[in-house]
Structure formats: structure tokens, C-alpha cells
């Protein structure tokens, strides 16, 4: 009996080791993609029921509602096609990473600026779609590679800078700052004259994306937008990361001067709309995505958006841009052709207009003029401001967002100096580049 038990146990252990050793390996350590079941595509064409999963990074309810309504319109025209929406919010990237590892991607998903670098192996080529011809000149190089493959449909365009409470700026007589030093001076004035009641700059170390966003925004004026810049050295890997330190030092200066909230280490992003609505925040280093929630609390709050102030003397403010929400099709999806049809439906001008208006962001395709409501005057005012792609999407490898979050949080917590943080950037970039070879 003992012998039989031992043999059974050994057999199962060996099976497990073999299964583990055999998984995900073939010579060059590659995993095989899931097979595209052509039968199901044919079934869809014959009108048999098809369910597509769609994942989007859209966080605000208004835009989510519009996207679902557009999806319902598609389903009305194609009654056999049902769309299942998922909006994982802050967990979006983690969920997609798990799905990539499991080779079980959604049929349609948002690539949030990483269509080529991160999701490139998983997306279908959309270059044969009609809407491709209408891609704006700014968007074309972002979503298309050198071989002409189109990775994603940009549903709208990011043209991002800072969001500010106009009531607060008017109350304390603050002009929209054009340089980072002017911005810090404005923060000091607000702090002094409000006797600490108003937080000049909203950050959350717990939801450290807000910290990383500061660095992503200001990396462009520091290193890219000026006439003499470091774009080439960043791309060819010869960049001296000591040149990053001044930005980290400015960030620490803002903290040391008390220009962030007293509880910056524990406040959450979910607190921002309430505080903004109450006039207790002056500047937020984000696009105005949180503003609809603030307006629900206080419909009278006045909102302004401004470009990212310059840093290098002689330079001018800029916007960070690229695609905001997107739709890509999983190349190994069971219903790839149906997925492409859904994407083409969303690419219709009237649908893209609705998405732009709901999200308060410009359109990414030509020939669409959305009414951007309270933001219209600002986009008109700043229509000639230069738009640079988001810094991390071009100059940093995939995976650096976490480094930006962690190091900035550690700077605030006193665990890291600005100089040390530059070295961490250097080390992590080397690690990620080696990983992605």
C-alpha cells in the first residue's frame, strides 16, 4: 500500500514537472499565439450570435455611457452581435498584462498610447480600414509604423496640460503661469494669501500616477521642447541622467515649500473632485477628466486649462499629446472581422464627435469639429501652442511609469534624494531595455 501511494505521488510530481517544463517554450523561449478559429468568423458572417468583449481605460461615467450607447447602436444594426464592456479604471493595465500573459485578450481593447511598444504583438493591422485616410497629421505617425501598419483607432486626441480652478486664480490675482518658476511663485502666493486654506498643487502619493504625471508633463519642457534639447541623446541611449535631477529638485522644492497638501502622502485621487469643487485646490497636474465629478458637487465652479509651463529660458509652454482613448482589435480574436467592423462603426464622424464632446477632448481624425463646451475657449486660445507626444511614450521604455510613481513618492517620503532618483531612472531603463530586446 505504501509503495502504491509513493508511486502515485511520484507520478503526479513528474507529470507536474514535465508540464511546467514544457510550457511556454520552443527554442527561443517564445510562446505560441492562440489559434484563430476561422470557423467562428464564418459563423458570425452567417448571422450566428457573436459576443465581443471590449476593454476601455475610460474612467468617467459620461464618456462610458456614450461609448456604450454607440455600441448599442451597432448592435441594433447587427442584432447577432452583443458587446460586453469592461472599464477596469486604475487596474486596466494590470488586467491587460494578465490577459497578455494568458494569451486571452479582449476582442477590442484600448492601447492608451502603447499600441506599438507594449501591445504591438497582440493587435491586428487596421491599415485596410476606410477611416485610416482621415487620421490627422499629428496622429498618423503615432499609430502607424514605418511599414505602414496601423495599430489602433484613436477615438480622441489628448492635448493635455494643467487644470486650474479659475475662481481661485481670480481671487488671488494670479495670471496663468508661463514658466515653472512662475507656477511655483503663484503657488506660494496662493498659500500665503489663503493662509493655507487652499492647496496650491494637488498631488497624491498613494495614487502616485498624479506624481508621475508631473514628471511626464515637465520632462518635455526640460529636455525636448527647447531649441537646444536632449531628444537625440534620449533616443540613442547616450543621455546623461544627471540632467533629470533639476526636475526632481523642483518637485522636492514644491513639497518643501508646503505647496502640496499636508496629507500628500495619504490623500487619494478620489478626494480631488470634492476639494476642487470647494475651491480648495488651485492647480491639478492632469487633464480635466475629473471635472465632471467636481461639477456634480458644485455646478458653479469655474475651470480653466493651460499648457505645461516652460522651463528652459526662451522656451514657450507646450501641451502633451497623442491618442487618449483608442480601439485596437486582438489579432488572434475569434471574431476579428466583426471586431474590425465595430471599430469602423466607432470611427464614423458622428460617433467620434460624441466621444470627443463627452470627454472634453479634441478629435483625432480630420473633419470632426466637436463642441467642447467649457473648454472651447481654452482650446481656441491655445490653438497655436505646440503639442509634443507624451514624453514617456517616446523616450522611455514600457514599464517606466511605475518607476516615475515610486521614485517621486520616495522623494516626498524622504527615502530618495533627487540625485538618487536620477540614478534609479538610469538603472531601470537599462533593465527594461535589456528585457525588451
Amino acid at each position, binding site marked *: 500500500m505504501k509503495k502504491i501511494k509513493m508511486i502515485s505521488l511520484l507520478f503526479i510530481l513528474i507529470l507536474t514537472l514535465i508540464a511546467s517544463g514544457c510550457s511556454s517554450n520552443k527554442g527561443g523561449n*517564445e510562446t505560441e499565439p492562440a489559434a484563430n478559429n476561422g470557423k467562428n468568423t464564418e459563423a458570425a458572417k452567417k448571422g450566428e450570435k457573436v459576443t465581443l468583449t471590449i476593454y476601455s481605460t475610460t474612467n468617467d461615467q459620461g464618456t462610458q455611457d456614450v461609448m456604450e450607447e454607440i455600441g448599442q447602436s451597432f448592435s441594433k444594426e447587427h442584432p447577432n452581435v452583443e458587446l460586453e464592456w469592461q472599464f477596469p479604471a486604475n487596474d486596466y493595465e494590470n488586467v491587460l498584462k494578465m490577459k497578455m500573459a494568458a494569451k486571452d485578450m479582449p476582442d477590442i481593447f484600448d492601447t492608451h498610447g502603447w499600441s506599438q511598444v507594449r501591445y504591438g504583438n497582440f493587435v491586428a493591422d487596421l491599415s485596410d480600414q476606410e477611416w485610416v485616410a482621415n487620421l490627422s497629421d499629428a496622429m498618423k505617425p503615432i499609430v502607424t509604423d514605418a511599414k505602414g501598419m496601423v495599430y489602433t483607432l484613436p477615438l480622441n486626441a489628448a492635448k493635455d496640460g494643467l487644470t486650474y480652478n479659475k475662481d481661485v486664480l481670480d481671487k488671488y490675482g494670479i495670471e496663468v503661469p508661463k514658466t515653472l518658476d512662475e507656477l511655483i511663485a503663484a503657488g506660494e502666493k496662493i498659500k500665503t494669501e489663503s493662509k493655507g486654506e487652499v492647496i496650491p498643487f494637488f498631488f497624491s502619493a498613494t495614487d502616485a500616477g498624479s506624481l508621475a504625471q508631473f514628471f511626464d508633463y515637465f520632462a518635455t519642457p526640460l529636455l525636448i521642447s527647447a531649441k537646444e534639447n536632449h531628444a537625440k541623446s534620449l533616443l540613442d541611449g547616450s543621455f546623461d541622467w544627471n540632467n533629470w535631477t533639476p526636475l526632481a529638485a523642483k518637485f522636492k522644492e514644491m513639497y518643501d515649500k508646503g505647496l502640496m497638501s499636508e496629507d500628500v502622502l495619504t490623500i487619494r485621487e478620489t478626494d480631488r473632485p470634492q476639494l476642487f469643487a470647494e475651491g480648495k485646490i488651485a492647480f491639478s497636474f492632469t487633464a480635466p477628466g475629473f471635472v465632471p465629478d467636481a461639477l456634480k458637487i458644485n455646478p458653479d465652479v469655474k475651470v480653466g486649462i493651460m499648457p505645461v509651463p516652460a522651463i528652459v529660458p526662451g522656451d514657450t509652454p507646450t501641451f502633451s499629446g497623442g491618442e487618449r482613448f483608442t480601439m485596437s482589435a486582438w489579432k488572434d480574436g475569434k471574431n476579428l472581422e466583426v471586431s474590425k467592423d465595430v471599430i469602423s462603426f466607432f470611427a464614423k464622424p458622428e460617433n467620434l464627435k460624441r466621444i470627443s464632446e463627452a470627454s472634453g477632448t479634441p478629435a483625432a481624425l480630420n473633419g470632426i469639429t466637436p463642441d467642447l463646451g467649457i473648454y472651447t475657449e481654452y482650446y481656441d486660445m491655445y490653438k497655436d501652442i505646440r503639442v509634443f507626444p507624451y514624453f514617456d511614450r517616446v523616450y522611455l521604455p514600457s514599464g517606466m511609469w511605475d518607476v516615475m510613481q515610486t521614485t517621486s513618492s520616495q522623494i516626498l517620503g524622504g*527615502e530618495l534624494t533627487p540625485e538618487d532618483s536620477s540614478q534609479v531612472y538610469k538603472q531601470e531603463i537599462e533593465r527594461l531595455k535589456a*528585457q525588451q530586446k
Partner: protein
Amino acid sequence: MRPIRNSTFSLNLMYVPALLLFALFIYYPFFEGIKVSFTNWDGFNPTYSWVGFDNYARMLEDKNIGTVIRNTLIYGVGSTLFQNLIGLLYALLLNQSIRTRGLTRTIVYLPVIVSPLIMGYIWYFFFQYRGGALNDIILLFADKPVNLLADPQINIFIITFVNTFQYLGIAMVIYLAGLQSISKDYYEAASIDGASSLTKFFNVTLPLLAPSITINIVLNLIGGLKLFDVIIALTKGGPGFASQSLSTMMYKTYFGAQDAGYAAAMGNLMFFMIAIISIAALIYFRRKEIQA
């Protein structure tokens, strides 16, 4: 008459399905994790490279790993200590014939059935700087609120407290079962010998509770060392790495830093740490049982 050997063979076949499931969901991921720890896999791409023991060497040079291991041990050992002390006290109290003992047992046990993430958020709302219940009380007596969750010297003990609060009900239930299995004859005999309450507790109750102590200590240690949800809800491991445990650090390294290889190495470290500590505790307390 059927030969005994055939009957035994059939019995052995009964546990093979369970063993197969165990192999699929425990052994297979475990061996996969060991394999991944020798690579630089980012967690989602089809390709990766073998890096040998680089990830393990990195752990030795990682400035944050000391803090993380220390926190893990505080959560594990700290929670275990207080869960058992308080759980035993409750069990002793609620083993008496008091009117509300049924209701009190239920109330003490209720936190166990709440999701740990929800429990963490409940206490976050208590401790939070803006509008937290604690600061609402403090502001009645002081000018400024306190930010306990931002203080790395304090927030790890808040996390330990919340974990203790949630699971001391389980310790109480196991100790109650242990207490109720002790024959009253022992106490009568001790009374006849003139033993005081304290003497009875240390010489009768505690030795006969040894099996319950063993179970509680080992289970609480494993649970505390693996703590995750409460940390995420209260502090997300911050500020910086100040309240990270091995499990939260693994999660952050895998998903945030896209460093599945290093995360797997940390996972193996966590496995061996928990295995060594819990086996050592099991052996120690089992010996005490035998002595008792």
C-alpha cells in the same frame, strides 16, 4: 472474501483526483514560479531570456528588501501574538455562563466574514486625515488632525492591528472548542488540591489547550506573513516602501515594474520564509503538546 490488497488499491484511487487538482493549482504554479525567477520575463510578452541567479543576487543588493522583510515579520508575528492573546482571553470569558455570550461570540467573529479589502477600507475611513472618525474626535480637543497612516513608524502597527481585529474571532472559536473539550474532572481535582484560578489556568487549561495553540499559531503566522489586502486598502505599501510586505512588493514588482522574474524570486523567498517559520512553529508547539 475479497483480497485486502484490492480494497486498499481502490481506496488509494479515491484521493488521486484531489491530488491531481492539488498538483494543477499548487505544484504547477510553484514550479513555474521557480522557472520564471531565472528569467527576465516582463510578465506578458511572449519572449524572455534566461538570467541565471541574477534576480536572487539583486535581492541581496536591493536597498528596500530589508524593510520589506522586517514589515512582513511584524505583520506575521505581531498579528499572531495579539490574535492569540486576545482570542484566548475572549474564549476564556465567553466559556463562562453569561447571558450574552452567544451574541458576543457572534459579534467578535463577524469581522472574519468581511472581505479583508473592505475591512481595510473601513479602517482607512477611521484613520484618514481628512474627515476620518479618529480626527473628528481629535479635533474636539486639539487644533490639528493627525496623519497616522503617513507615519512609517506607526502605519505598520495600524496594519497589524486591523489584521488582528479581523481574525481574532477565528482564534477565539478554536480556543473555545479546545476549552470545551477539557474535562471538568481536571478542574475538580485541582480544586480539591487547593489550586487557585491562576494555578488551574497554567497547570490544567494551558497544557490541555496545546493542540489549539498549535493550530492557531501556525494558521495565524501563515495568514499574517501573507498579508496583502489590508495593506493595499490602508496605505498601498507607502509612503514609498515603508509599509510594503513581500506580497505587496511582489504584486508591485510584477505589475508595476513589469519585472516578473524578480517578482517570482521574491515569491520564492516568501514561500521559504513562511515554510521555515511555520514548520519551526509546528515542531516546537507539537513537542509542547507531547510534553503536556
